[in-house]
C-alpha cells in the first residue's frame, strides 16, 4: 500500500508569507508526528497527534506554528509570517500504534525555503 505522502515537496516563500504543509499518513495509522530537520541536523520533534487529538505540541518553536488533524487522518502544519529561520525540511511520520514500540513510517518531507 501507499506510504506516507507529503505535499508540496518543495516550497519557496517570501519572508512574512503564510504556508501550509500537508501530510497524508498511512491509512488507519493512529499516531502522527511532525518533525523539523534543519540543514545538517537531525530531525527535531514538533508535535504529536493521536487520532484527532493533539497530545503534545511542546516542540513547536513559536506561536506562528500551528498543526491540525481534524478528522484523525490528514494533517496540516501551518506556519504564519514565515521567517528565514523557518527554512528546513518538515517531516511527517505515522504509526499504527500509540505505544512506545510503534514503528514510525516517515514521508519524504517538504523542503521549505524562506527568502
Amino acid at each position, binding site marked *: 500500500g501507499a506510504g506516507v505522502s507529503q505535499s508540496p515537496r518543495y516550497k519557496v516563500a517570501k519572508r512574512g508569507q503564510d504556508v501550509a504543509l500537508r501530510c497524508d499518513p498511512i491509512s488507519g495509522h493512529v499516531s502522527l508526528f511532525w518533525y523539523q530537520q534543519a540543514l545538517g541536523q537531525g530531525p527535531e520533534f514538533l508535535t504529536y497527534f493521536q487520532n484527532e487529538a493533539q497530545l503534545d505540541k511542546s516542540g513547536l518553536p513559536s506561536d506562528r506554528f500551528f498543526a491540525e488533524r481534524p478528522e484523525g487522518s490528514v494533517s496540516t502544519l501551518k506556519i504564519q509570517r514565515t521567517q528565514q529561520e523557518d527554512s528546513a525540511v518538515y517531516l511527517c511520520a505515522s504509526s499504527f500504534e500509540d505505544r512506545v514500540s510503534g514503528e*514510525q513510517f516517515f514521508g519524504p518531507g517538504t523542503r521549505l525555503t524562506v527568502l
Partner: protein
Amino acid sequence: AQSVTQPDIHITVSEGASLELRCNYSYGATPYLFWYVQSPGQGLQLLLKYFSGDTLVQGIKGFEAEFKRSQSSFNLRKPSVHWSDAAEYFCAVVMNSGYSTLTFGKGTMLLVSP
C-alpha cells in the same frame, strides 16, 4: 533531558570494507534505541531497533547494532559496505514511557569510495 550523540559527522569507507557508526545516548534509564537511514530525497527508513533482550540486534540490509549499557552506546555495524549504503544515518531514542516521540542525533554521513 535525553540526548543522542553521534560523534562522527561523516565517514568514508571503501566498498567491501567493514563499517561502524557510533552512537551514545544520555538518559536515566534504558531507552528504546533506533537506527534510521536517509537517502537523498527519501524519507527516513528504519534499519533496526532495540527494546530489550539480546543486546545484538539484526536489521535490514545486513546491518546490526549492539547495545552496551555500561557505555551508553548503540553502535551500528556492517561487515561489508556496498556503494548503495552511501547515505546519512541517524541514531534515535525514545523514552520508554508515554508515546514514541523520537529524539535524534545529528547524523553521520557515510561516503563509500570505490
